[in-house]
């Protein structure tokens, strides 16, 4: 427990995959990551919410492509040579889904400093706190650990 913190700290076990979207750094548990791809051909799904309005072919599986930018109201960026697709498997409402996440840049797999995150403050961030599992640190950067199941769950029918 971090004695200087007023907020509750929470242990985050295991290794995390860190990636950038815009100027923000994100981290997700490495063990749910299946693979990381260069951006393949993307099929637009008319009428679908902007967060998940595309499909890609991941080795014969048709996977929805999601854009965390929408969930976290970040500026959209053009795809460049660093843009990657992170393919994860996650339990969404008790069913396992293969989901692709768009990232501007994938950094590395590491443990967050102290192996812990702090609860996101209810005020002071522009994001809905319930979408965030916590905020950790890696070196001099804050790293957002999004609650993937929760975010995805909001878009599942």
């Amino acid at each position, binding site marked *: 427990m971090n004695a200087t913190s007023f907020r509750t700290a929470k242990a985050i076990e295991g290794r995390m995959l860190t990636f950038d979207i815009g100027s923000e750094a994100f981290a997700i548990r490495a063990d749910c990551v299946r693979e990381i791809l260069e951006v*393949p*051909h993307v*099929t*637009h*799904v*008319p*009428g*679908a919410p902007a967060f*998940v309005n595309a*499909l*890609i*072919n991941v080795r*014969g*599986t*048709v*996977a*929805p492509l*999601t854009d965390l930018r929408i969930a976290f109201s970040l500026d959209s960026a053009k795809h460049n040579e660093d843009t990657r697709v992170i393919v994860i498997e996650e339990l*969404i*409402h008790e*069913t396992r*889904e*293969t*989901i692709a996440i768009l990232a501007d840049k994938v950094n590395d797999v590491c443990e967050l400093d102290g192996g812990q995150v702090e609860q996101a403050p209810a005020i002071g961030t522009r994001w809905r706190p319930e979408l965030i599992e916590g905020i950790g640190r890696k070196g001099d950067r804050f790293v957002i650990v999004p609650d993937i199941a929760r975010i*995805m769950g909001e*878009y*599942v*029918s």
Partner: protein
Amino acid sequence: MSGSDPVAAFRVEAFELLDQIENDLLDLGQDLGNRALVDAVFRGLHTLKGSGSMFGFDALASFTHHCETAFDRVRKGQARATAALVGVILSARDQMRALLDETIAPDEAAQAAILAALQAAVADDGAATTAPAADAANVIEDATRLTFRLAPSAMANGNNPLNLLGELRELGATKVCADLSRLPPLDQLVPGECHIGWTMLLPASVTRDDIEDVFMFVMDDMELTLEELEPASAASEIIAVAETGTAAPSQARTPSAPAAESVRVPAERLDELMNRVGELVIAQSRLAQIAAQGGTINEIALRAVSEDIERLSSELRDTTMVLRMMQVGGLFGRFRRLVHDLAQETGKSIEFSTEGETTEVDKTVIERLADPMVHLIRNSCDHGLETAEQRIANGKAGTGQIMITATQTGGEVIITVADDGRGINRDAVRAKAEAQGLIAPDAVLADQDVLQLIFHPGFSTAAQVTNLSGRGVGMDVVKKTIEGLRGTIRMTSVEGQGTRIMLHLPLTLAIVECMLVRVGSGCYAIPLSAVEECLELPASEAAGGKSRSFLDVRGELIPFLRMREAFATDWPAELHQKIVIVGAGDTRVGLVIDQIIGNAQTVIKPLSRFHAGLGTFSGATILGDGTVALILDVGNLLASAQRQSATRAVGEAA
């Protein structure tokens, strides 16, 4: 099929067994004296009990045991098979089915009632008492002298005395002596018989159970004495025969986990699949060899491999598809019971027959076909067939016929539900449709169109409401389900002679021939079975805008949807846009698209739950270049076109 979960396998097997028992019972109901059927039912119950107890379905095993015991009296000729008995065992069968489903709490009251009825049906109390297993685990005091001699036939029965001696040695036998006193002279010696006896000393710690364990299979026919050496109290004794079978605790199973879906596949089909995979592996290694050669590629060899792989992948696809195919016989079998029950409920005499049970259809189609077929059969029993009196008055046989058949022609399977009842009274249908405002009183309709009114939502021809009809699903739901399976319904009916409803269904849902079209920058697939024709969009309509969205095709007004607008594309429009007219039944709609790309065989991939709710698309497919294309949900487009023309009609009337 999961190859390693016997519990799941048992459940599949038990359901089949119960269906078989039901069929045999229904046959037995028609032919009460049939010994073979009595045996078949008994064997089914017996197997169910035995396997059920093996896999931890104790309640099922115990309930089935009681039924088996009662039925055994019939088998042994102590009781007669009667219609009442068949009825009771049929309801017992339903209980057994419920006991297989762990999500349903066992209905003990119902079970007790069934067992009581069963006892009554087999005349007297047939309670079987099982002898309690002897429980003699007392330790033999001090050292014990064991003397034994196997029955002469023991070796012929596959017993090996050396194995028994080996086990006794493991128990700590010492001073083992062979007793050759009964060895016959050589000329009388039968080599397969055992003539040698043995004596030995066993340590005090050896229990009777241990010794019984060693001799468990030969105990009945052998000579065996045990002498306790100190204190030398009792005379030699022969250990009583006791069954050592103890009830095995059930294997761990997780009741809450939903049973994984499994398909039973004949072994030869798997072999075929394995052969193809084997060939594919060889082709792959040839390809790797060519790739590893470096320098100039041997083009001929490469082409040969490419052709092989092309052939193999198409064969693999076909073989794999076939794995999903199931015979319709299992589905048809379920309806016998339905007709049996309906006949009793309505008091009508009904003969039920089936044909083409070996016709194979995709598993998914079979599963989704069950409900609509139940409805069609109910309709036939309830509305189609007349009472015996009415039939006889009309010069027909008193017993009505219901026949279901399956045939395969080309890429589709036709399932027919036919009855020889009163047929459909066109005037009644018209009157009803007029009363409901479905048609204008003076509308001129072709005969087929009158019949199709039956499939209109909410339409019901029942002059009287019986407890069989109108249970929620109407013919419109039947039609919707069949169309959801990419099938169509056709119907013929002759008044006074009967009705025949034909369900035309695709062989498989997994592969569908599609037309690929471009709208804006996106490529979409339209199931070819729904495509009726393709036209060029007249220049007068190309501008889009607010002009009417109906197209005059040879005098028929067809509504059309501008897919560019529907998909909100800002990609430049093609100069000559096309219209693809799609239809199902008598509803048609034109889809305005940019370009027709061509046809392709596509494997349907379901959409994730993110997109399943959109409704516009029925799935996705992966094209030859690896990109994903969405498959248009034609049924949904037709429905929205209908809504559009309805609002348009209202708008024009205003």
